[in-house]
């Protein structure tokens, strides 16, 4: 059964918020867990279930300040999943937040956005 998920951030993992009613997913903080797949697997499962059961609009916010390579592979897979949902529903919006002076995160967001065909906004914040 699909439930809301809210995890607080740790030194090596980001905060995770996944709300069914609001149709909102948010990943915020730094991501370099010892086992990225183990950490991100519940998110994949939640997305699969949401797409299968809810079939509603979904806003996904990334507010990351650092992630390692294995995390970036997981993020890419999440975006692939979202792209697939968008392809059949057009009900996905992705927001990539980066600190105003953080050019690295802007560049990473731009890389992730490349070849995706859905709403992908780069949003600067102070």
């Amino acid at each position, binding site marked *: 059964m699909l439930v809301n998920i809210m995890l607080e951030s740790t030194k090596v993992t980001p905060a995770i918020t996944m709300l069914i009613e609001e149709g909102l997913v948010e990943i915020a903080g730094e991501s370099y867990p010892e*086992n*990225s*797949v183990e950490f991100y697997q519940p998110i994949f499962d939640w997305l699969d279930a949401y797409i299968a059961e809810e079939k509603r609009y979904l806003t996904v916010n990334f507010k990351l300040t*650092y*992630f*390692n*390579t*294995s995390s*970036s*592979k*997981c993020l*890419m*897979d999440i975006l692939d999943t979202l792209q697939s949902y968008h392809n059949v529903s057009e009900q996905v919006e992705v927001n990539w937040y980066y600190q105003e002076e953080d050019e*690295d995160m802007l*560049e*990473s967001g731009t*890389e*992730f956005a*490349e*070849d995706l065909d859905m709403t992908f906004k780069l949003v600067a914040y102070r």
Partner: protein
Amino acid sequence: MNEVSRQDSKMTPDRQHSLNITNSIFKSEQDTVEQFHTVLLDKSMSYDTLLSEYRQLGQRYESLLKQATKLTRIGDVAQRRLMNAQKEMEYQNMLLDKQSRDIEKANSELQEKNSQLNETLTEIELMNDILEGERRKAENLLLNILPSVIAYRLQSGEEIIADKFDDVTVLFADIVGFTELSARVSATTIVKILNDIFSRFDALLDNHNVEKIKTIGDCYMLAAGIPVPYKHHMELVASMAFAMNHELENYVKETGHQISMRIGLHSGPVVAGIIGTKKFVYDLWGDTVNTASRMESSGVAGRIHCSEVVYANLNDKYIFEERGTIEVKGKGTMMTYFLIGAK
């Protein structure tokens, strides 16, 4: 055991764990490879099906290539970010090291200055001790020369002290037989004898609460009722006069020197104080002083010669013997008495 198994058995737990994670991350890619092997081994597959599988595998390969390219670029960004962070950390460490060295240097300088300061402080304390010692010596010397209340007034800035006292008793004591003695012994011996006698008188002062004024040759002058007025000044001086006579008797017994003493007493108003700027002496001025001196000079050896005012005030407590009248310069004749003893 085949070759692969032997290699696996040599893997460390960390290497095995890392391989598992990698395998998990690339599960979809591994599935694609599996699919490729399935197609390759399926000999019964028709040409059309084979073509379709080939097309799907090609598309998948293209997608994976894009992902690999993207991951590489993102990985480069992350690596650059780490290197920048590392450089920043090294820079911050360098700054911290410099600050630490600066603090250490400043601390060392501070300790050096503190040490110098302590040395200076010790020197100052030593100087203070010396100064305090000198100050005490000076104060003691002043107190030895002057009555304490007068010394304190001088220290507090008074330059001329001349206080009027209405009622004071003045005593003069003169050593009789000294002239004859002087002819027989040396001047040094004379001074020693005088010093011995006057030192004995000095030792009586505190107990009798009288103030030594000065010595003039072989004459010893004291008073009571100054510098602080005191109602029973006559009794104090009378008691002192008996004590001085007693002390001289002892001295004569001890040394065999044939000397005696005339003592004269008179009471009345005086002006007491210090005048001049050098060699301070607390002195008394006035007719009372002159009359007391006259009582001594017209007295008799071994007796205490008093004026009528002394007699009038003490005859209820002391025994007197009428001496008769004497001529006092500027005052005419005066009735005088010998003080014999307490009643």
